[in-house]
């Protein structure tokens, strides 16, 4: 019992509900409490699923089996490359981008030509897609009405035209209520998310009904299909069509981000980058769910309507109706209407923004009679243009539907649109990742790709319905076989979509790259390229403001803003901007580069970047920056970063070098001081004996009367002092030789025990004179080391004579010990003298340091013996040190390593 009136009422009620959701979303957004959560964002992406998905997929599955899935696998894979999407969002936010045309135009130097070109391609490309929606809604309506035998409209009206008109009105109500600087429509996004849920539920409901209600579930359905020979092939993947499979995945992967409505939803309507993280899996999950029942529905329809005439695109309606499930059919109709409406709303809003900003406005701004500069408030005109654009686009959709719609199934029409928007891919990807891409390249690529698409896909679709002569498809243009529209240059064996896609992308990419490489970007273009490609590296503001130089007046810019945004909105934005810059009133702001940039950004939101640039340029006198200058500024920014890093490294290196230098300097100074000390000490040491020699000589010389005893005593002193002087000079020379490494060494086997005994023997008299006991603990033979015998004797004598000097007479005792362990010989000379403090233990090895108190005691040695001895021992690889405590005697120890034991060489 479905009357036309009831269907109409239900549809109106549903659209009213959508509208209410949208108003609610807008109200919440105005109140600052956005209802756009990550889930809402992810669901709104499902605007991708249109009537095509809802009705068309089933139709496609009846002829192509599982190949309909490519359209949903492509987006799943594309979304996983989340970096690309985040980059698009980041760039769009930084540049205030409102559409895909704006994106491409802005990247290539805010070019009005490119903006217009992209808009034209998008409108022409998407028109078939809108026609698809009209066709689907009208077909579904027809099915319902046929069923009830009622008539919806008086016969003079065309129901499709009425649907198009209603959709236009609804879209206008929806999307162009006010002019937002960011072109964001939160209410619309909320409504789309809502309708996405409705269409999913409706589709699942009919899927379950058919699979489990009409048939006995998946297994039975598939088994019955497998039994029918003409259906069995739908169950298997046809690997001979693998090229088409890949092409469709590529095509849909590009469509998910480059269709104007998808760009609108994913990029422009994104309020928070982190929402993408949810969308990356929730939206594909939605796609999986909405596709599970497609093949069962197709098979069910084919089995059920075997032998009758049917339209597979409307199986989702006709199947429940054939079982009298009218309520379910109504739900499905609402789901389909929902899918179509959602698509039409978002698509036409996105396209109308592009048409207004990138096509009509630039043209109006150039017309003198229009008098842009005289009009006080242009925001009303902008809205008017957008509304007209919406009507126009739907009208074009209707015309296409009439011209070519009958010849194609739903999916066939949609794919034509996909192939058109795929043309944006080279300019978009190149623009985001390749700084070298130029405007000339982008224009050439887009024109080339679009022309090929037009010739190989769109025009043949008209030819098929007989609108134009199909000669260029069948025989080739002017009868040239190589120019056959769907077998270009003889490329055949592909379906028409893959054929068009490969040729158009080939032309597009080829031209884009070749022309880019052979053209030079303008200054503005180079700056934009840098900002797009390096968007993650540039801060939100950073060097941007520096790329503008000139003079402007605040008043003129403000009046510009008021004219395009409306006075109220302009003042709001100005107040926000002033507050962010710590100024109480915008009138106090300077008309500097940042303010100009702000004004341009606000205008971009309303009229697109290309037009905004023209408008700002009309009131601000900008000094043109040359290309080189722009590069310099941009390079400066990168270079400053590089330099500062380099500088940091250099300064650290410098610090290290300075520290090293300071240390070396310290060492040098120390050495210098030591040299000075040495010389003064040597001089002093030499002068002491000289002075006494001279004094006594003078006395002998001046006083001839001196008695013999005195004379003999004086001469004895002179002889002693002369000997000491000689010894001193010898030792100084010895020391110098040792230190400079010019000393002559002989190396032979030396029995250290024997050396010790000889040294003791040679000093025996000295010990006896002083009454000092000399003891020894020396093995009878050995140990034998490799050394210089005379030098070793010198060390031994030195240590012994030191010891005898410091021990007290009569009670003094000196003990010599020689012993060897596995690796070295250890020689000790121990005395019971006054001992040394810890400090003295170290300094006595310095040159000219005498034991005892140098101030009171008469020097008893030269002060070179120990340093020389240490040099000798160390030369042979040993050590010389002293162990002592004050009052406990001293023990001088030196070691000499034993020669390595000879290896036993072999058994023979």
């Amino acid at each position, binding site marked *: 019992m479905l009357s036309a009136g009831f269907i109409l009422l239900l549809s109106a009620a549903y659209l009213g509900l959508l509208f209410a959701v949208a108003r609610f979303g807008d109200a919440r957004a105005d109140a600052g409490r956005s209802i756009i959560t990550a889930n809402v964002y992810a669901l709104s992406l499902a605007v991708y699923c249109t009537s095509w998905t809802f009705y068309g997929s089933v139709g496609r599955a009846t002829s192509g089996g599982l190949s309909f*899935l490519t359209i949903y*696998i492509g987006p799943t894979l594309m979304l*996983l490359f989340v970096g690309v999407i985040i980059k698009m969002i980041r760039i769009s936010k930084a540049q205030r981008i409102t559409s895909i045309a704006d994106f491409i135009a802005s990247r290539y130097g805010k070019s009005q030509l490119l903006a217009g070109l992209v808009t034209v391609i998008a409108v022409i490309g998407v028109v078939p897609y809108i026609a698809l929606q009209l066709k689907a809604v009208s077909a579904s309506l027809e099915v319902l009405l046929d069923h009830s035998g009622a008539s919806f409209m008086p016969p003079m009206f065309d129901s499709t035209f009425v649907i198009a008109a209603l959709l236009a009105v609804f879209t206008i109500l929806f999307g162009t209520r006010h002019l937002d600087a960011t072109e964001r429509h939160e209410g619309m996004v909320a409504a789309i998310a809502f309708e996405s849920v409705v269409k999913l539920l409706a589709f699942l409901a009919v899927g379950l009904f058919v699979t489990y209600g009409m048939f006995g579930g998946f*297994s039975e359905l598939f088994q019955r299909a497998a039994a029918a020979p003409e259906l069995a092939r739908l169950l298997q*993947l046809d690997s001979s069509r693998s090229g088409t*499979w890949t092409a469709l995945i590529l095509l849909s992967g590009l469509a998910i981000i480059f269709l104007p409505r998808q760009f609108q939803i994913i990029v422009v309507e994104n309020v928070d980058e982190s929402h993408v993280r*949810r969308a990356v899996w929730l939206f594909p999950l939605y796609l999986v769910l909405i596709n599970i029942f497609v093949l069962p529905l197709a098979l069910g329809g084919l089995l059920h309507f075997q032998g009758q005439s049917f339209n597979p695109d409307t199986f989702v309606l006709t199947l429940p109706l054939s079982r009298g499930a009218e309520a379910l059919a109504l739900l499905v109709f609402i789901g389909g209407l929902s899918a179509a409406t959602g698509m039409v709303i978002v698509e036409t809003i996105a396209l109308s923004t592009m048409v207004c900003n990138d096509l009509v406005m630039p043209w109006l701004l150039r017309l003198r009679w229009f008098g842009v500069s005289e009009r006080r408030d242009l925001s009303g005109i902008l809205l008017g243009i957008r509304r007209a654009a919406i009507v126009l686009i739907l009208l074009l959709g209707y015309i296409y539907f009439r011209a070519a719609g009958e010849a194609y199934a739903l999916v066939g029409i949609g794919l034509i649109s996909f192939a058109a928007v795929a043309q944006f891919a080279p300019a978009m990807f190149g623009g985001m990742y390749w700084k070298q891409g130029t405007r000339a390249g982008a224009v050439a690529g887009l024109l080339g790709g679009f022309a090929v698409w037009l010739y190989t896909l769109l025009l043949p679709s008209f030819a098929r319905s007989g609108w134009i002569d199909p000669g260029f498809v069948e025989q080739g243009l002017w009868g040239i076989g190589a120019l056959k529209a769907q077998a270009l240059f003889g490329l055949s064996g592909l379906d028409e979509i893959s054929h068009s896609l490969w040729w158009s992308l080939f032309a597009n990419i080829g031209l884009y790259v070749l022309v880019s490489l052979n053209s030079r970007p303008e200054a503005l273009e180079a700056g934009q390229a840098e900002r797009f490609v390096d968007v993650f590296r540039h801060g939100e503001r950073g060097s941007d403001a520096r790329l503008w130089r000139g003079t402007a007046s605040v008043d003129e810019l403000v009046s510009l803003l008021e004219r395009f945004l409306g006075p109220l909105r302009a003042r709001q934005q100005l107040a926000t901007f002033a507050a962010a810059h710590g100024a109480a009133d915008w009138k106090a702001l300077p008309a500097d580069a940042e303010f100009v940039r702000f004004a341009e950004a606000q205008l971009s939101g309303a009229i697109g970047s290309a037009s905004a640039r023209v408008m700002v340029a009309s009131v601000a006198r900008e000094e043109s920056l040359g290309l080189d200058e722009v590069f310099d500024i941009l390079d400066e920014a990168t270079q400053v970063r590089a330099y500062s890093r380099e500088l940091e490294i250099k300064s650290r290196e410098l610090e290290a070098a300075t520290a090293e230098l300071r240390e070396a300097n310290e060492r040098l100074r120390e050495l210098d001081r030591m040299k000075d000390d040495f010389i003064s000490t040597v001089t002093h040491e030499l002068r002491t004996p000289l002075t006494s020699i001279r004094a006594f000589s003078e006395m002998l010389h001046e006083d001839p009367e001196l008695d013999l005893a005195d004379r003999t005593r004086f001469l004895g002193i002179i002889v002693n002092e002369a000997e000491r002087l000689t010894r001193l000079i010898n030792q100084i020379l010895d020391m110098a030789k040792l230190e400079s490494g010019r000393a002559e060494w002989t190396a032979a086997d030396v029995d250290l025990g024997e050396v010790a005994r000889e040294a003791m023997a040679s000093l025996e008299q000295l010990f006896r004179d002083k009454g000092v006991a000399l003891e020894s603990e020396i093995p009878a033979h050995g140990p034998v080391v490799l050394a210089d015998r005379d030098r070793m004797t010198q060390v031994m004598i030195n240590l012994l004579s030191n010891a005898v000097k410091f021990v007290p007479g009569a009670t003094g005792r000196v003990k010599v010990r020689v012993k060897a362990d596995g690796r070295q010989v250890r020689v000790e000379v121990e005395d019971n003298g006054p001992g040394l403090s810890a400090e003295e233990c170290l300094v006595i090895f310095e040159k000219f340091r005498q034991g005892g108190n140098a101030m009171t005691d008469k020097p008893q040695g030269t002060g070179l013996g120990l340093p020389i001895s240490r040099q000798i021992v160390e030369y042979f690889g040993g050590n010389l040190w002293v162990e002592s405590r004050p009052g406990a005697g001293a023990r001088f120890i030196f070691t000499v390593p034993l020669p390595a034991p000879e290896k036993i060489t072999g058994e023979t």
Partner: protein
Amino acid sequence: MKRGNPLRQRLAALGLLGIPLLTYPLLSLPSGSWNGIPASFLYLFGVWTLLVVLAAGVAERRGK
């Protein structure tokens, strides 16, 4: 300088894994049927669902 966001890289890796799994020639591997349901149908939806589940796991792992 921010480089190599791990989340983006993991998801992209899933994408790169998914491309060969969901295109020919690997797609021609499943044959026959299971419980009446064609293997190709099960394979496509199985791999696809698995990708979605893995992506969800990666994307939601560290909360917000």
